[in-house]
Structures are given as C-alpha cells and as structure tokens.
C-alpha cells in the first residue's frame, strides 16, 4: 500500500512509463484506425490501462468499476453497435471538410501545449501530494460509501434517475413503430397469384434462365422427368427440353450444368448396334423400326 504515499515508488514509475506509453498508443490507435472495431479495441486497451492507474492511485473501487463498467459494459455496447452498423464499414480517413484537419491539428496542439504548460506552471512538486493514507484508512470502498450516502446522496439519487431516464430514452429512440398492418396469409397468397397472372408481353420460353415473371408455384426441382437425379442436371420440361431454372443459381453461374438429353439416345443407338452385330441377321421391321428410330435419333 505504498502507492498511497505521496511520492510514487520506482515500481510505480516503471509501471507508469510502460503502461502510459501503451495508453497513449492505444489512444492514438483509437483515433487513427480505419475500422471502428479496431478503434474500439484500442480504446478498450487504454481503458484497462487507466483502470490499472486508478488502482495505482489508490482508487481501488474506481479501478474495478472502470474495468467492469467501461471495458465490460460500455465497450461491449460499442462493439454491438459497431456490429449493428456493419463491421466491415471502414470509413476513409480522407478529409472532406476544407481545412478541417489543419484547424484540428492547430487547436489540438495548441490546447495540449497550453494544458501541459498550465500544469507545469502550477509547479506541483511531489510535496504537493498528500496521499490517501488516512482517507483510505477505513478502506477505500467504505470511504466512498460514506461520502456517497451522506454528502453526495442527492447527486447519487439524481444519477439513478438519470440512468433510468437514459434507459427509457434509448428504448424510445431505437424502438421502431410499425407503420402498416401486418398482411394476413390470405392476402399474401392473393398477391402471389395476382403477380403471377400478369405475364409480361413477349414472354420468353419458360426454359430460359431469365424467366421474366414470378411463378405462382415453387420452381421445379432438378432432375424431374430425368433419368438422372443429380443436382447439376437440369430437369426436363414435359416437351423434353431441359429447364435451367431447376438448377441452383450458383451452378448456373458457374456453368456446371450437364445436359443429358442427348447422350441418353447415343447410349441406345450403341446398344442396338451391338445387338445387330451379335445376331447377324437382317430383320426388316426391326431394321425399319430400328432405322426409323435411328433416323429419329439422328435428327
């Protein structure tokens, strides 16, 4: 508990210089990262470090609260919102307002310099620090409690009210009022039919992929009326032509549709050839029929 002493020990000094640097880096990261998520993470890091500093300064309660409330609650809230808005939204750091960045830099530097100058000019030597020795004598939390519930009780109650209000406010703000009545199933069905019953003029052949208008029914499954039932084989329409609509869009885009209508006939012809050669005899009607079939297939 030497941290309570006025002057800081070397250990604390080391801790300060190391973590302080990290904190500053985190802060810079917060404002320089392209993606909001990264900024949030950097901020979280800085806050944790600040929590450590609180502890180092003898504000044990605050240190813990800092971790729980800030890093635990607030930062998570931030992350949620970031997710809500879109993680990948990386906003460009290109400045749109004319001169904004320069002014910002000028003001920032000026402000910082002045602040530091002011603190320096206040010339607070180590002797200026009383330390929290007796203040924390009865324990930091007890001390805070004593103050909160006596001296600051009204402010405390007020903050309570404030929090409630904030919660309600958040709900009011984010709650979205439904503007129109939800449509019943019947209405949906009717709409479906209505849309379907209005074919565009010069309707393309149902087989084509860019089939212009909604079907009242679900699309046919692949492999219907087909000899194959693979996913990449288009089903055949009643007239035997394959309908690309039956194949999933991804495959269609990749062009991985196999057309099997032709090779089926080829297999048949090959079979007949083989059987003729084996029997070796000429059979007219068979031949005729077979030829006719062959011709049929050949066409």
């Amino acid at each position: 508990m030497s941290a309570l002493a006025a002057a800081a020990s070397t250990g604390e000094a080391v801790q300060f210089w190391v973590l302080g640097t990290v904190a500053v880096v985190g802060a810079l990261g917060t404002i320089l990262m392209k993606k909001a998520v990264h900024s949030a993470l950097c901020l979280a890091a800085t806050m944790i470090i600040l929590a450590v500093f609180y502890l180092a300064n003898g504000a044990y309660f605050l240190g813990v609260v800092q971790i729980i409330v800030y890093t635990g609650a607030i930062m998570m809230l931030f992350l949620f919102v970031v997710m809500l808005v879109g993680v990948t939204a990386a906003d460009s750091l290109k400045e749109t307002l004319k001169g904004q960045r320069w002014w910002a830099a000028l003001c920032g530097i000026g402000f910082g310099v002045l602040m530091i100058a002011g603190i320096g000019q206040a010339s607070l030597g180590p002797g200026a620090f009383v330390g929290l020795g007796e203040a924390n004598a009865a324990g930091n939390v007890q001390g805070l409690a004593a103050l909160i519930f006596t001296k600051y009780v009204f402010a405390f109650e007020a903050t309570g009210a404030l929090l409630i209000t904030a919660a309600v406010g958040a709900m009011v703000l984010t709650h979205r009022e439904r503007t129109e009545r939800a449509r019943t199933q019947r209405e949906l069905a009717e709409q479906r039919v209505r849309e379907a019953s209005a074919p565009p003029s010069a309707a393309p052949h149902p087989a084509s992929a860019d089939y212009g208008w909604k079907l009242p029914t679900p699309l046919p499954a692949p492999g219907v009326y087909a000899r194959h039932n693979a996913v990449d084989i288009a089903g055949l329409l009643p007239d035997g032509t394959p309908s690309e609509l039956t194949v999933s869009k991804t495959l269609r885009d990749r062009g991985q549709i196999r057309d099997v209508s032709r090779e089926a006939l080829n297999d048949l012809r090959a079979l007949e050839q083989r059987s003729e050669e084996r029997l070796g005899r000429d059979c007219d009607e068979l031949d005729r029929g077979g030829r006719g079939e062959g011709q049929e297939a050949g066409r």
Partner: protein
Amino acid sequence: MNPVNYLYLAALLFTIGASGVLIRRNAIVVFMCIELMLNACNLSLVAFSRMHGNLDGQIIAFFTMVVAAAEVVVGLAIIVSLFRSRHSASVDDASLMKL
C-alpha cells in the same frame, strides 16, 4: 517519480480524444473519442484526489462514469436510429443545421 505525471498523461489523452472528435467522421468513433476524453478527466480527478488526500475526487470520477454510461446509452441509440434512417453513421451527413 512525481505523480503529477498522471496529470500530464490525462492532458495528453484528453487532447488526443478531442482531436479525434475533430477529425473522425464516423459517429461511433467520435463517441469513443468522447469517452476517451471523459476517462482522461477521470484520471486527473483520481490523481487530484490522491493529491489532496480526500475521496471527493474519486466520487466525482464515479459520477462521471455513471453519466458517461447514460450518455453512451442514449448516444448510441441516437446513432442507431440515425443509421436506420440514412444508412450511414457519418456525422457530416447530418448537416441540416446549415442554412
């Protein structure tokens, strides 16, 4: 080491946060920067409470946290509804104040 360094650190963080508010367009990030500034203040408050040897500074810091929490809640809610309405979280898009 002189604990006054905490104050310098706080000033630095505050300045960084403020500059962030000025240069970032994403409302959420702007909010984070504001949080950063608040935390910087808290740090200085804590340091002061150490300096004066009483706990009032920490109390104030505590209240700051509470208020900050409330503010974040509402603020984020606003951002969300804003995003819903105009599909962007850029503070520059909400520039209807111009004549």
